[in-house]
């Protein structure tokens, strides 16, 4: 039996399977490991960032800085490696530390100054974007032996197609993220805060450190997504990834996580990413459709899911009322 709280996830999964089946009916070639491999690689950076966003939204917050942090990271890495000749591993470590600190700073402001997450991360968005421009307004290409090795590394799927390093990184982030959410006290505290911050506090949840941890995690994963994006494009550009945070939010919500917090699954976000990738792939296969159809379909899906979530809340309330009446 499906619990009501997993219904959005199951619905998303159902929609994905049906949509994929319909696509395959029209374009049989879409059912190949090559398509799936490309889909995973193309959306790797978005998927990594969306895992961080999942935690933020589960706690009832929002992080608008993600796209800017990705751009900042990619420019920063490109300049360090491409122009200054720093070893990529050192550059990676440096940006991960910076983005994590940036995230924890935003988390601390949200918690200890009582400023709404929307406002704090909006400021963070401008700040990170501005910092990226400050480093370079040009697209900075990078090439390094190690980066070439990483880009060239892949497993071959049985039926053709490649599981690249980037795709593996994203899958790893999803698996670890799902574990953290479901099987650690930190994860339980995130759900608790998303349910009701006040109740969580009265129940002894360390709300302060958890909030800082959530935004630090989101910052860290944005930095990691930035590294993935740099590897994906072999360059860093401060104008890139504008609005990626909104794509991430869309993936999270389509994946069945309640925007009000407290309910959702990391695995749902993965399906949300797959659905977005599927639409893009379909448009490529069709060849005549404008890429804006991606946005239109995602918009429609978002509406459907928000209505669905309201419907589920209404339904479970009504069922509860009915079961109470029966008891009497």
């Amino acid at each position: 039996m499906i619990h009501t709280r997993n219904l959005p996830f199951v619905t998303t999964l159902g929609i994905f399977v049906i949509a994929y089946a319909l696509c395959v009916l029209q374009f049989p070639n879409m059912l190949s490991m090559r398509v799936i491999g490309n889909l995973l690689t193309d959306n790797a950076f978005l998927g990594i960032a969306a895992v961080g966003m999942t935690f933020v939204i589960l706690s009832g917050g929002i992080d608008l800085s993600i796209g800017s942090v990705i751009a900042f990271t990619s420019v920063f890495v490109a300049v360090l490696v491409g122009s200054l000749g720093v070893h990529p591993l050192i550059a990676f470590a440096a940006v991960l530390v910076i983005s994590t600190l940036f995230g924890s700073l935003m988390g601390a402001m949200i918690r200890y100054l009582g400023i709404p997450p929307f406002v704090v991360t909006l400021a963070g968005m401008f700040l990170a974007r501005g910092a990226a421009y400050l480093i370079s307004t040009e697209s900075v290409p990078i090439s390094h032996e190690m980066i070439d090795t990483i880009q060239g590394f892949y497993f071959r799927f049985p039926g053709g197609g490649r599981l690249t390093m980037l795709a593996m990184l994203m899958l790893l982030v999803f698996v670890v993220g799902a574990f953290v959410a479901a099987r650690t006290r930190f994860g339980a505290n995130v759900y608790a805060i998303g349910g009701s911050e006040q109740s969580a506090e009265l129940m002894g949840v360390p709300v302060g450190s958890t909030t800082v941890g959530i935004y630090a995690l989101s910052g860290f994963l944005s930095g990691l997504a930035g590294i993935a994006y740099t590897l994906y494009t072999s360059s860093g550009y401060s104008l890139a990834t504008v609005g990626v945070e909104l794509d991430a939010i869309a993936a999270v919500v389509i994946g069945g996580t309640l925007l009000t917090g407290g309910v959702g699954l990391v695995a749902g976000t993965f399906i949300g990413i797959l659905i977005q990738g599927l639409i893009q792939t379909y448009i490529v296969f069709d060849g005549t459709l404008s890429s804006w159809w991606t946005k239109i379909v995602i918009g429609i899906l978002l509406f459907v899911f928000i209505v669905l979530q309201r419907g589920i809340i209404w339904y479970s309330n009504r069922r509860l009322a009915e079961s109470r009446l029966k008891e009497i």
Partner: protein
Amino acid sequence: MSDTNSLLEARGIGKAFLGITALDAVDFTLERGEIHALLGENGAGKSTLIKILTGVYSRDHGTMRLDGAEVTPASVAEAQGLGIGTVYQEVNLLENLTVAENLFLGRQPRRFGLIDRGEMRRRSKALLERYGLDIDVDALLSSYSVAVRQLVAIARAVDLSGKVLVLDEPTASLDAHEVEMLFVVLRRLREEGLGIIIITHFLNQVYAVADRVTVLRNGRLVGTRKLAELPRLELISMMLGRELQHITREHQAQEETIASTAEAPIRFSGYGKRGSVAPFDLDIRPGEVVGVAGLLGSGRTETAFLLFGIDRADSGTATVDNQQVALSSPEAAIANGFGFCPEERKTDGIIGDFSVADNIALAVQARQGWAKPISSREKAALAESFIKSLDIRPADANRQMKFLSGGNQQKAILARWLATGPRLLILDEPTRGIDIGAHAEILKMIEKLCADGMSLVVISSELEELTAIAHRVIVLSDRKHIAELKGDRVTADNIMQAIAAPGHTEAA
């Protein structure tokens, strides 16, 4: 001086907020293995005392001993660690988590650093079995009734703390059967030596479950007494702070409803809502003031909410001029000529940033529909006439409402409803928080309105006020209409006796 059996001992507790004393030298002692009720009307200081005991507030004065050792809990978590657990009425557990997750939040059993869900499930099952609950602990808390949630909250608090259990209004939204279930658990915990503090408005429940009672009034201790030796009437007079002048035992509090010769144009029969107010009959005649009396939480405001359609009745019928009407929303009630001045003027009544004229015009506008806006000239004329007739000061229709005194705000709200020409006006605590001069004016206005043929329902905790203006008084207790007093019988003493009458103890 410390009694060996005392579990929690608070002496001379004082607390002030911004110079206003909330608690003044209050003593409170909780024994091992007792259920101790804490009673008092609004603003008596119950919740302040509880918050000091459970670490939410720090105390300004006094000492607190737990098991003979002096303690000063600085946070809820610290109080929990010391052994003082609290179950709040509303902010309770997390509905979006499962039962097991709620029970073990923050202390989940772990294996290799990861939460061991199997172990958590087993322990939750075992824990709840002791409370007679055999439920699916992996189901969401929100899928269970309030009663079950309450038991889960108690199970968590006792498991976590284990010495003192504080229950803040635990029965407010439970039905009779669920209350009994809860009491069975409380009695068992008492046997195990726990000290239990229970805050409730329901006197029947106090007598049913508690051993001793402590009454607070206006931040001071009125007394701590054994319930077995405390007559109900005396407890009520401790709470209301009013001595009974003439106690006439032979007086029966309940009175039969006398069939009136005049047919009432507004009738409610069998009107009620589960968990809010038990079904009641109420006839309202033109030019009549019906008073509603009862202790805090007895269902006074809930009755008003039902009459005005804010809450929907789930039983009974409402009839206006022999036509059955459905009061499904305030809009429907307004359409039937009803008006309502709520108790919480600041939050429910006025719109502070709107002008006096806008506030007055609100109900008229609502009545004629938003599609037909009132012109500013009509609005000004309307405001002008009421400012004059009700003597609202300052006489400036354009002043923002929030700058008016409480009494004048109340008059403006009255004006809002009078402008619609209502036939029934419901006033919830019309004189709360306004000065004596305005108080008298409002009462005078009420008299004048009913002389003009309007019907009024007035809810008040001021017994003298009710007896001065009401022709009839409905007395409520434990969310039931228990008595109706008329004519000469409308006296403060009779109302108190009606509240205390044991005739209604077999509630449900």
